[in-house]
């Protein structure tokens, strides 16, 4: 049990991550996906650190 989130966390690792992400607002889930995809995704087209950060800032400020 996570006191701060006040939710029973799932046994499945990623289900639990999903719960944590959604706890910070529904709009955070796509933002989170975008951040991880930009940095670690197989489709990531960005190799430069600054390019990645700029892309992420664009997504956050959209």
């Amino acid at each position, binding site marked *: 049990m996570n006191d701060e989130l006040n939710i029973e966390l799932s046994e499945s*690792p990623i289900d639990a991550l999903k719960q944590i992400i959604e706890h910070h607002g529904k709009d955070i889930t796509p933002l989170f996906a975008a951040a991880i995809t930009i940095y670690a995704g197989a489709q990531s087209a960005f190799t430069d650190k600054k390019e990645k950060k700029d892309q992420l800032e664009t997504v956050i400020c959209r």
Partner: protein
Amino acid sequence: MVIKKITFQNILTYYGEQSIELPIDGDRTLTILVGPNNSGKTSIIRALKFWFYGRDGIADRKDPVSYISNRAKAETPIGKSLEAWVEITFERQVKEDRETKTLRRVIEAKRTAESRWELRSTGLFVSRPTERIPLMADESDRFQRIIESMVPKALFDAFYFKGEPLDGKLLGDVSGIRSALGQFLHEDQWEEAQDAVGEIRENLSKKLSKLTSANSELQSKLKELSQWEIKLEAQRKALSDEESSLEASQALHLQETQKLESLGDEEAARSIRTKLSSAQQRFKAAESQLRSAEEGLKSEISNSLGLPFLVSTAEPVSRILKEMEDDNILPADITDGFVDRVLSKKSCICGKPHDSSSRSNWEAYKARTLNADAGAGLRKLLDWVKPQGTLSIKSRSKEISKNIARLVKERLDAITAKNEADTEIKALQSHMENIPIEEIARIGKSLRELSEQIRSKENRARTISDALRITEYNTKNLKSEIQDLSKKSGVDQNAFKKLTTSKDKADRLHKALTECRSRLGLYFHRNLQSNVSSIYDSKSTDGSKAHIHRQTLLPAIHVNGQATRELGGGQSQLLALAYVVSLAKLRQSMHEQLEELNIRLGRIDDLSFFMDSPFGHMEEHYKRAAVELVPHCARQMFVFVWKEEWDFVRPLLEKKADAIYAIEFATSREDLDKVEKPQRKYSFSSGSRDLLVSLPKGEVYPYSTILKIK
């Protein structure tokens, strides 16, 4: 990454070019390779490791020339070079597409003398069969990095078991499971993303500050907000650290409790100790009672003068005494002086006057009486033979018999008590041998300390959480104040709103990333523990349980709460298989869930397991359980089996296999004759085949050939 084809030339026992095509269609595939002992099954694993890591993949970094087939070497003239290679065609996800690549790892060596070889080169090449130059060197190690990232070296032995026993590799040598799982998720990149979000948040703060530079009150409020946010961040981090620490203590508490439950509780252990101590005291008391009874008996028998045995003589002794009395043989002490004193008087004791016969009568009487000692003895004897009285032989004998009977009873009671205490002591000691009392006491102490830690951590977390709520409340109010103030201040409202919204999003995203990263390890553990236990615990027949280490994520078998490696029935191999299946499930679940979250990290569920003799050295029960697990438990499952294993698994696996290959091993006539004919024959649905054959005429070096069966 999934492997489509493995080809090798002149590698280890394989002569010439040999290849195996692995099915990749569908989510789960099973390929079986059947071969005699020492025919080259493990050589395939060695070849794979060499392909992945080059010289680093060769055990003890031996000379790569040792990987070249002896037969090929023998056929190479002195002064000529020879090439041996391993080539793998694999498929991997690149962006939206699946990419197929073929990479060849080559060893080139020159024969410089009859038995001397010189290594010319080893290297990785990209195969381009349609190009003018069909092999291109991996100059910048680009592909080397790609294949190493697909199968990290630390994890190779978890997926590509080599040699026997299977469990030895998995349970002993595999390290870095946790970091390797993180590597599949590119956890380092998550951290980079988190840092970037932090920087973006700061940039947005600066932009806000710039936007409001004309209004000093708004500036001051924003500055104050920034300080509150720093405080908020620090409190959130402190809470997250405290909660992680609390969870670790709770997990440890649970683990210790489960251990204790399997050992027996502390109270029971204490009770056994008390009982043992009491039985030992009773044993000592009985021993002392026995000694005392035996001493008493000795003394009583010694003092009895054998009277109880003389009781039957009392009657005849009475008669003899009566006779003696009748004969005037009385107990008296008649001395010469006594006779003289009687005769010196006028009359006798009886009152008659003395006459001439008085002296001779007294002399005759004196001669018939006993002396003083004999008299005393006779008096004692007379007392004894009396039917009544405390000194009578009957009373004394009765008393002695009573005392002896009492002492005999005491002795018997002591012996019984001693034997009972001894039996109890032995039983309790044997019980204690099976119950690790010391371990129970240690766990009990550890549990008390952990409970104390948990209580204090809960209190600290509550205190931080309360403070955090206050900070959040103040921050929220301040934000609202800033909003109101911004409206009155003439600041561009659209720009202001956009910046504050973005900053808020960056803040929440940062929080989500921090929390997800800190929880990842815990969920890997939970998932693996739950999956491995559900497979292993239900199959184990000896009460042993699967246990996943919380930090390393390595599996172990616990018996009575203690890790053990001493089980020989096949438990370890079943655990290894359960672990493999669980790793596959974990990666599949991660892949599906990440896809659901729209996070595309590639096919992280793409993985191949190579298992060398997974069913060897197992009891039938465990072998059967292992066979049930193998088919279709991963994208690619490649199982190598030898004769006995094949005979056992064939009815269960042959139909389920997507492909079957066999190794035909050509060996010398002498070695072949050592194996009975039925042992050379392998049965398949398509017919039987001899997989052990004789070397062609003139050949000296044994070699292997791959045959496609299904």
